[in-house]
């Protein structure tokens, strides 16, 4: 899959760019080989599922009410993602491979609710498959990602190159940022939506949660010797965002993968009393009320 051969929104699942990142991490951190293989297998399934969506439903919709995902596609997606995760996990339960079958008893909107964190829907599905709720949620979130990217892809593309430097929420779907990156060559900051995967520009000196712009309130923490991965903590709203710096990491990064290889930074942030911006944003601060979009 390349940018030339597919719709631009499908580049979000481009295995080629992910492959570069995985190769780099395999050299740097061979002990992470198992989790990297799992991420690659999930991404390959997502790329194929994205292609199937486009061939069934056509181009990504623009300005319409969101239709529900086709139920067959949804069940297929959950089955394939669960199987890819089970195939590469050291301790996958039998229930994981049966998740697709269990999901067939649920309608698409109910599955979307579970993926969105509806506790009752999630419990129902996890109980049916006899797997932990957090594993079920992880599989569902990976399974619906191609759908969300397809759904919001047109709007995300129409916003490309438009100046939204202070958007705290995803300008395409209104989702919260998962994490961010500083791109080559000049260090512009982009945030990635935890929902649809869209990426948008955001100021370097500024908290994506509350919009604080006072540099003295924001601090960067990193493990000595690994400055390419940092968390920026905001002392005003006590939230943090993780950042991967492409200039220091040797090229393009794939943020869902970066999120996994930097889980120790989440732990560091939580230990110091901060919450991730992916867990919800704070109201804008008075000083930065221009960030109140």
């Amino acid at each position: 899959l390349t940018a030339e051969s597919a719709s631009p929104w499908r580049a979000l699942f481009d295995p080629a760019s992910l492959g570069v990142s995985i190769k780099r991490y395999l050299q740097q951190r061979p002990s992470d080989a198992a989790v990297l293989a799992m991420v690659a297998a999930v991404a390959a399934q997502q790329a194929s599922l994205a292609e199937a969506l486009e061939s069934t439903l056509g181009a990504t919709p623009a300005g319409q009410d969101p239709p529900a995902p086709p139920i067959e596609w949804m069940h297929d997606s959950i089955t394939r993602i669960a199987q890819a995760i089970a195939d590469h996990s050291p301790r996958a339960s039998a229930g994981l491979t049966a998740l697709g079958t269990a999901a067939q008893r649920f309608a698409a909107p109910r599955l979307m609710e579970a993926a969105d964190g509806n506790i009752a829907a999630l419990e129902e599905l996890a109980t049916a498959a006899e797997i932990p709720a957090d594993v079920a949620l992880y599989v569902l979130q990976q399974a619906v990602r191609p759908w969300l990217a397809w759904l919001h892809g047109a709007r995300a593309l129409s916003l490309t190159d438009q100046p939204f430097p202070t958007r705290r929420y995803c300008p395409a779907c209104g989702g919260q940022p998962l994490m961010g990156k500083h791109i080559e060559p000049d260090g512009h900051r982009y945030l990635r939506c935890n929902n649809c995967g869209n990426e948008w520009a955001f100021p370097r000196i500024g908290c994506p949660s509350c919009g604080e712009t006072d540099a003295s309130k924001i601090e960067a923490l990193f493990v000595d010797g690994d400055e390419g991965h940092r968390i920026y903590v905001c002392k005003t709203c006590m939230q943090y965002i993780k950042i991967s710096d492409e200039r220091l990491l040797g090229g393009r990064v794939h943020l869902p993968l970066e999120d996994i290889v930097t889980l120790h930074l989440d732990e560091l942030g939580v230990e110091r009393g901060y919450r991730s911006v992916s867990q919800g944003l704070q109201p804008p601060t008075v000083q930065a009320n221009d960030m109140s979009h």
Partner: protein
Amino acid sequence: VKLSRRSFLKLSGATITAAALTGLGFEVKSASAAPLRIAEAKETTTICPYCGVGCGIVCHTVNGKVVNCEGDPDHPINLGSLCSKGSALYQLANNDRRLTKVKYRAPGSDRWEEKTWDWATTEIAKRIKETRDESFVAVDPSTGVTVNRNEAIACLGGAALDNEEAYVYTKFVRAIGTIWLDHQARI
């Protein structure tokens, strides 16, 4: 698999991934298991001091010491780019050849002497006063017009002075009658 509101909140956001990976048997790298040395950096914006373009810079400091300088990608003038001199700005703060004390070479002398800031500011004020008093022209002799000017001192503003600094500087040099006031960017 019963979830309480509390346990769900614990699972939400970034921690879903960690909890799920642990549940699947992956070893999740821990920040506390193997104590890691954590550095804390501040990023502060500033303006390049070298020329009149006024490029934006992001300065990284750790424990108050400058560790890196880079172009500010959000600055409307340079959008993150810097010239070769601005790119080397880090060396302005970290340079063993940087002068940190007042050095004075007396007229005709062949060596530098170390002086205090108090001595230097007092000496500069004294010499400005002397020169100004010696060369002050209250009335132009050829026209008889009152001019109150000091013809023996020229002043040069720095390219990196901002509006307010340039204003104060101009007020000061005009107050001592200086008429030769120019700007470094014109050199």
